[in-house]
């Protein structure tokens, strides 16, 4: 039994079935990856687990520590220990980085804030009084969001494309932060189509056309993903017979 279990999860948006009968167990304290091409439904899956608006009318169930969380909204799920790092973090006009980070936890000290910023490679003196707005690059906001998750230390961390907008130099800090989350006991779920990010995980689930088509140790999934999914010409429709070979 995993800390987070998805059971026969399906989601239809408009007339399109985006998630198709997914069942996954995420093991506590491990780093997992959901990997697949663009349009496979990976971000939709993260939004559904988080309970975002528009992603609540699904079939099936989601269990956290054996209890269904399907009826809970975002903040209730967050208070139970699930949180999300967005593919493209929001901008907040006028809100300082420090105020944003303080919102991550009721008991947050200045030392914790400084440490989290340093863990994502940002100097607190340079950033804490700045605003989380368009004056920060997407990559900076991404790292600040990761710092907020380090402060929050949720049980389950969903990271949607954690490398998007991140320069090569900063990427290792992001990877260090992912491992730090794991060391501190978080279960990490990486949403990615990047093999570099995939390598940070211990287990991977290959997603195609809203379904999990393979799972296993990262090494095996990477091979299949690189050789089959990346050059794939069948437009995100799984060729089940190939996968089963």
């Amino acid at each position, binding site marked *: 039994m995993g800390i987070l279990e998805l059971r026969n999860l399906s989601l239809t948006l408009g007339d399109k079935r985006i998630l198709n009968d997914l069942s996954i167990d995420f093991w506590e304290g491990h780093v997992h990856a959901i990997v697949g091409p663009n349009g496979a439904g990976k971000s939709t899956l993260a939004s559904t687990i*988080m309970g*975002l*608006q528009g992603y609540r009318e699904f079939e099936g169930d989601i269990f956290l520590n054996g209890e269904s969380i399907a009826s809970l*909204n*975002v*903040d209730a*799920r*967050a*208070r139970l220990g*699930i*949180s*999300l790092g*967005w593919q493209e*973090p*929001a*901008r*907040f*006009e*006028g*809100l*300082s980085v420090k*105020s944003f980070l303080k*919102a*991550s*936890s009721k008991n947050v000290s200045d030392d914790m804030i400084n440490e989290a910023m340093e863990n994502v490679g940002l100097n607190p003196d340079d950033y804490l009084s700045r*605003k989380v707005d368009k004056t920060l690059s997407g990559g900076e906001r991404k790292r600040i*969001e990761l710092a*907020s998750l380090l402060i*929050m230390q949720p049980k389950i961390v969903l990271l949607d494309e954690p490398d998007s907008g991140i320069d090569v130099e900063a990427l290792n800090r992001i990877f260090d932060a992912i491992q730090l989350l794991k060391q501190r006991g978080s279960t990490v779920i990486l949403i990615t189509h990047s093999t570099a990010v995939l390598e940070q995980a211990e287990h991977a689930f290959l997603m195609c056309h809203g379904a999990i088509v393979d799972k296993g140790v990262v090494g095996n999934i990477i091979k299949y993903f690189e050789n089959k999914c990346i050059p794939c010409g069948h437009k995100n429709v799984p060729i089940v017979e190939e996968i089963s070979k």
Partner: protein
Amino acid sequence: MKTNSDVADELYRTLQLTDNALQDPDIAHLVVNHNNVVGSHLIPGLEVEVDELDNGIQMLFRIKEGVQVKKPIHLCFGMIPENGLQQINLTVDIQSGARAAVLAHCTFPNAVDVIHTMDADITIAEGAEYTYTERHVHSSTGGVQVLPKSRVRLGKGARFKTDFELLKGRVGSINIDYETICEAHSILEMNARINGTHDDKINIREVGHLNGEYARGVLTSRIAVRGNSIAEVYNELTASAPYAIGHVDCKEIVQDNGIAQAIPIVRVNHPKAHVTHEAAIGSVDNKQLETLMSRGLTEDDAVDLIIQGLLS
């Protein structure tokens, strides 16, 4: 019986300031309770003439030519009583090459039925700079009507920046009416930040005329309307000379039964002038909201934090 000094201290206490402006010899100040000057300290280069009226004051405020005032001048207009009218008739004369900043506090901590009007004529001469920051502190009853009206003239190369802030206490009813004429190479910046709740009424009319070449102007409004409050923001910016450029930026967050309206008028009368505008009115952005909620904040706490940021 209270002395003038007692009243000045009482008014200043309502502002919850942590500085010691009234004791600093380098900081000029003037404290007016209703129609009575209860405290003042002037510095070289600053001239202030006050006539007490039945329900307010008539004041001339002058920074002499070339004088650069280093620390912000503190003005405090207030009324301790629950009811009454305070009328401020103000003539501001910032002479050429002078520079000054004013931090004006308007405090009505006990207001049940108070009307505060300001009628100002402001002249900022060639090359002069004047920054006017106005912060209001109101009671929690909403029994205040604020009616500030200013006509501003910016000389060649002059700069004028005004920040109007009403974030503490209930707005009540406010009707801002500012109009500015800008000569060549002058710079105008007008900002308003107001937090409306209950049945507050917010009305802003800001007009800028960029009449001289290379004149620049920005009109910015950040308004929150919650409860049953209503806001209407009218921004008009006209550029009539070569290379005059301007921008109008209005954001209003609407929650509960609040109603907001923005009317941006941008007008260009010269082919080498340029004016832009952006206006956004609506509920709190859902992505912002869900980001904060995904950290465990309730929806109400998340909305408060977003609005606090917008108005900061």
